[in-house]
């Protein structure tokens, strides 16, 4: 550092925030706007939806997009597709959020413990993670649905279980690096307890890794959850859910393709938006790229 005397040292200007760094990249900006729009649409679905998601009018059954004032048409039961999509998005995003929060939370905790008590817990925790990783998520979903019955709860549980080992690995790797930094030892030398060290010093320094992975994982989890629902393990009719809607539309693929295609396109947009946002976040948060 410079030899400037301490008293006259200027106060550094604040660095540009994450948001402004994100908005500089067109891809990142678009994905961020998309994510905000999607989440907003899901949150305000009851206000935005033109009809009730369970209101059916068999006269409108399989109405093609654009007919009778239905922008995206109606499904086999004659329910407005826009309404169904908005509510379906709500259910799908909530399932994804719950799975990432629960599975990611437990995974992060395991990762912290493995890195902090490296000597005692790293081996056992990482072997457990290896075992969990060796089960395909769909298989876990099938097993859980067999035990608890198909439904949203089972899907969230299966997705959480599938997220735990991935998050544990990512966090452990990031925490191992932080554990080698001097301030951990310096904080220990002040007599801080282990729990406080983990919470106050280890965890905040792993936050960017957690955040990036959670965002990326969110997209994957939505896709997985939709797949489970498509297989009939998740949301049960008449609950609107994107994967379940695609599954219902499968039977009418030749007469009314929009019933299956529209939810699939929405799934595609959701997953793509979260993946691009996750990548952009990684670039924005990567300390090596910081100016």
């Amino acid at each position, binding site marked *: 550092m410079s030899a400037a005397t301490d008293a006259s*040292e200027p106060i550094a200007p604040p660095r540009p925030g994450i948001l402004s760094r994100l908005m500089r990249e067109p891809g990142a900006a678009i994905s961020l706007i998309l994510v905000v729009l999607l989440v907003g649409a899901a949150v305000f679905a009851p206000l935005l939806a033109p009809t009730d998601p369970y209101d059916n009018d068999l006269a409108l059954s399989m109405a093609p997009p654009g007919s009778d004032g239905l922008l995206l048409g109606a499904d086999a039961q004659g329910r407005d597709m826009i309404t169904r999509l908005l509510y379906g998005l709500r259910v799908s995003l909530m399932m994804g959020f719950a799975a990432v929060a629960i599975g990611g939370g437990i995974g992060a905790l395991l990762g912290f413990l493995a890195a902090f008590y490296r000597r005692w817990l790293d081996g056992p925790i990482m072997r457990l993670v290896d075992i969990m990783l060796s089960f395909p998520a769909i298989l876990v979903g099938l097993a859980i649905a067999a035990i608890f019955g198909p439904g949203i709860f089972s899907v969230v549980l299966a997705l959480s279980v599938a997220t735990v080992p991935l998050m544990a690995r990512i966090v452990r790797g990031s925490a191992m690096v932080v554990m080698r930094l*001097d*301030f951990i030892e*310096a904080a220990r030398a002040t*007599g801080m307890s282990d729990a406080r060290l983990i919470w106050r010093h280890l965890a905040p*320094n792993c936050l960017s890794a957690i955040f990036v992975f959670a965002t990326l994982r969110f997209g994957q989890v939505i896709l997985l959850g939709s797949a489970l629902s498509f297989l009939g393990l998740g949301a049960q009719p008449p609950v609107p859910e994107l994967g379940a809607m695609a599954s219902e539309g499968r039977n009418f693929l030749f007469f009314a393709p929009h019933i299956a295609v529209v939810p699939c396109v929405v799934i595609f947009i959701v997953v793509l938006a979260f993946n691009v946002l996750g990548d952009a976040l990684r670039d924005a948060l990567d300390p090596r790229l910081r100016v």
Partner: protein
Amino acid sequence: MTDLLTIAGLRTVFRTHGGEIAAVDGVDLSVPRGRTLGIVGESGCGKSVLSLSVMRLVAHPGRVATGSVTLDGRDLLKLSNADMRDVRGSQVAMIFQEPMTSLNPVHTVGFQITEAMRAHDTHASKAELKNRAIEALKRVRIPAPERRFDEYPHQLSGGMRQRVMIAMALACSPKLLIADEPTTALDVTVQAQILDLLRDLQQETGMSIILITHDLGVVAEMADDVAVMYAGRVVERGAAGAVFADPMHPYTLGLLGSVPRLDEERETLLAIEGSVPPPFALPKGCRFHPRCPFAVDACKSEQPPLRMLADGHQAACIRAPVEAFVA
């Protein structure tokens, strides 16, 4: 005056594939109350491991094998983990070499100081802690402490960060401060400021300081007593004045000969031939004999103990004092 800290027969070993190796091998030292002990030696001589042993912060695969570290009549090595945690920060505190990395980049300076206080005072209110932290920043002569309280480490210079580290270390008024190369990473002018600060704080609080460094100038300026370490052992110890004026161990002599001085005319600086032997390949007998210009056959067979050669001045050399041979 009684000693605050007494280290006796301390041996810290690291388990490796080739068996256990001792980074600190049978060290005896004492630190009187309110005084400064300087520990000098080259890189890898075990001085940092020694200080971590006192704090019981030696990381696996290292461990303190034998010996005692008595602080105020209590053997720290026999305390439970919880009791030891209580001692850290409140009785013995430590500052480290790298002020740039010893502070957590994600927290404000104020938060980190209050955290250090909270570790030992769980029921102080937030406002009270903040006042005390600002007081602590003021004590280490940080200008505009109220403003600095809310700043992040990256907004501070190296010298300022080291001041913050000192404020953190002294937050709970420890009796002993271990400073491990506190000025090595700093500019020379800032070094002097930090040393002045440490000296002033010692006078205010009456704490003892263990100053670990490879910089003989720093020791000469700060220390009351000096211990010279070589390959995990203390080879010479005594009052700072005596050791510098009248070095008895050939290694100390070599160290002093390798420092440029203004008051003497010297064509070239003396270098000690060779380098510190790694702890897994220590020579038999005196560990310094392969590099020692005064070595005789007897040096190769037995390890010399510390011998009292003058009042309070000890050296571990069978040929000491060696000035007689320097002609």
